[in-house]
């Protein structure tokens, strides 16, 4: 158990190390970070001096070392636009993004797991068809279009819900539905196929043959075993949700990290972009580490791998 955890922890550290390198390297893609950071009309003298001050003349790896040391201390430099520490700006927006992603995930789980179970247990029933078709559409609808259509319907037409901002629960509904639909569809399909597979196993037939009635079979025997792939996908889907929040937050003017980073990219405010990408990626790595720990409790065989 502990060797598994230690190995998994080391892997996460390696991944975070790689993430930091990529985040750093983005600025150097065009070869000259000074030209990326400075406005296009900066004079040659300004560019030269800026390079000097920022240490862009040092070897690449020296610069990376400096960046990594800073990042470990939560220092990603000053925001070009706001004049504050980039790290603080991003951390300030994190709760809003977590609120949105959390609400979307909660919504997805509450809808998809029951839908998936019912679909599998009552296979080929009307409910199964409805759930399957809805899930199929949910997987094919682009997030941003769904958001716009929801605004058109609930804000513009019926004036039922606010189309932008954060605050009350009613502000949360449209963005959470928009962000959560794709995940709902994914988990519904996964739960359905997972349950179907488990329900065909010998031990389920044995339980049935012994006279165990339908619902204990579903709840005690089947769901517990179908839960493993579901837990995994929740970790992965969190990445989708954090990434998707970029679009959703832009549409609904939700004051989170996603919107901040889209604005930062438009303003060429790269310290903020770097801090945001690094922190979102770290969150994802951390959550997946947790998922793997939960996993070992659900399926002890995993530890032996």
């Amino acid at each position, binding site marked *: 158990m502990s060797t598994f955890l230690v190995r998994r922890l080391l892997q996460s550290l390696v991944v975070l190390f*790689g993430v930091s390198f990529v985040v750093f390297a983005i600025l150097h893609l065009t070869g000259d970070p000074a030209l990326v950071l400075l406005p296009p009309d900066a004079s040659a003298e300004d560019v030269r001096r800026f390079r000097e001050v920022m240490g862009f003349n040092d070897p690449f790896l020296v610069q990376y070392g400096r960046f990594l040391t800073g990042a470990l201390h939560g220092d990603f430099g000053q925001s070009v636009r706001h004049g504050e520490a980039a790290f603080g700006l991003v951390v300030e927006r994190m709760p809003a993004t977590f609120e949105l992603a959390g609400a979307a995930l909660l919504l997805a789980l509450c809808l998809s797991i029951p839908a998936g179970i019912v679909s599998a247990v009552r296979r080929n029933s009307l409910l199964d068809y409805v759930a399957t078709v809805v899930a199929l559409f949910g997987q094919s609808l682009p997030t*941003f279009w769904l958001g716009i259509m929801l605004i058109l319907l609930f804000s513009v037409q019926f004036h039922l819900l606010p189309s932008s901002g954060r605050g009350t629960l009613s502000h949360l509904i449209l963005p959470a539905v928009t962000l959560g639909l794709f995940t709902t569809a994914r988990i519904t399909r996964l739960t359905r196929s997972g349950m179907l597979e488990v329900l065909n196993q010998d031990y389920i037939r044995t339980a049935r043959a012994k006279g165990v009635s339908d619902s204990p079979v579903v709840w005690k025997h089947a769901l517990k075993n179908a839960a493993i792939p579901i837990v995994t996908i929740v970790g992965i889907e969190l990445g989708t949700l954090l990434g998707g929040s970029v679009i959703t937050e832009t549409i609904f003017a939700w004051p989170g990290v996603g919107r901040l980073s889209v604005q930062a990219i438009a303003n060429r405010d790269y310290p903020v972009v770097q801090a945001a990408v690094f922190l979102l990626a770290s969150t994802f790595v951390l959550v997946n580490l947790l998922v793997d720990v939960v996993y070992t409790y659900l399926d002890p065989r995993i530890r032996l791998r």
Partner: protein
Amino acid sequence: MATVALPEAARAQRREWLVFLRRLAARRTALFGLVVVVLVVLTALTASLISPFDPIEQDLGDLRLKAPGFRDAAGHVHPLGTDHLGRDLLARVIYGARPALLVGFAAVAISGLIGMAAGLVAGYFGGRTDDVLMRLADIQLAFPFILLAIAVIGVLGPSLKTIIVVIGVSSWVVYARIVRGAVLTLREREFVQAALALGGGDVRVLLRHILPNALTPWLVVATLDMARVIVIESALSFLGLGVQPPTPTWGGMLADGRVYISTAWWLATFPGLAILVTVLGINLFGDGLRDTLDPRLNV
């Protein structure tokens, strides 16, 4: 009809194909998906022939923001209405299929090739090579994809080429994982062991014996990934980081539509429907392909 005797192997292969096609056609949803995809591809290819209007020509006079079905002074009907610059929406939706499919095919080709190579090498050689490649995959997966894409495109500047390369280079992981999984089981099979025992080199065994058998799962992933790439292309265009105006893109049209949402609902509705239909078609076809080729495939 004169028949030419086919060599036995070729005939068996052809029979296998026929069986596969018949099974695929028996799935009505998959067939429907295929028809939709073919129609969208044909639309993109023949856009200049079937489009009723020029998609870029503006008319800032009395053609601005007209509702679907509007008949202009010259008596031409605009079935889907016009946008804020007086451009015909149907023409723009038709032409919008081009960048979507172009990015879809090109990006999938790039990521598919990278992923195939990485999966073959990781699965076949195992050990250290496998560890390094799979850690790279983890690093790749840790990034919120859209954020990474917009950060890179923000630095490099938006263009068709940049979008294709950025999406292509950063989407290889699914392919690598599925191919690696297939290779791990194939490596232990008798025919591979036999090829190795007969003195076949690594490269020959990988390309001649393992690759053809790993193609099936790869193809399913590629089909389903195409749907994802098309959504990402329109998301980037929506954020203004895609193919630049005046070239019509579905995502770009949606961004315009969002501005006029309270006055002109059709602006945001139709390009979104175009994306939905295309992506749904691809997903249906991909699901059918998976169920026909390998129902146990977990993608």
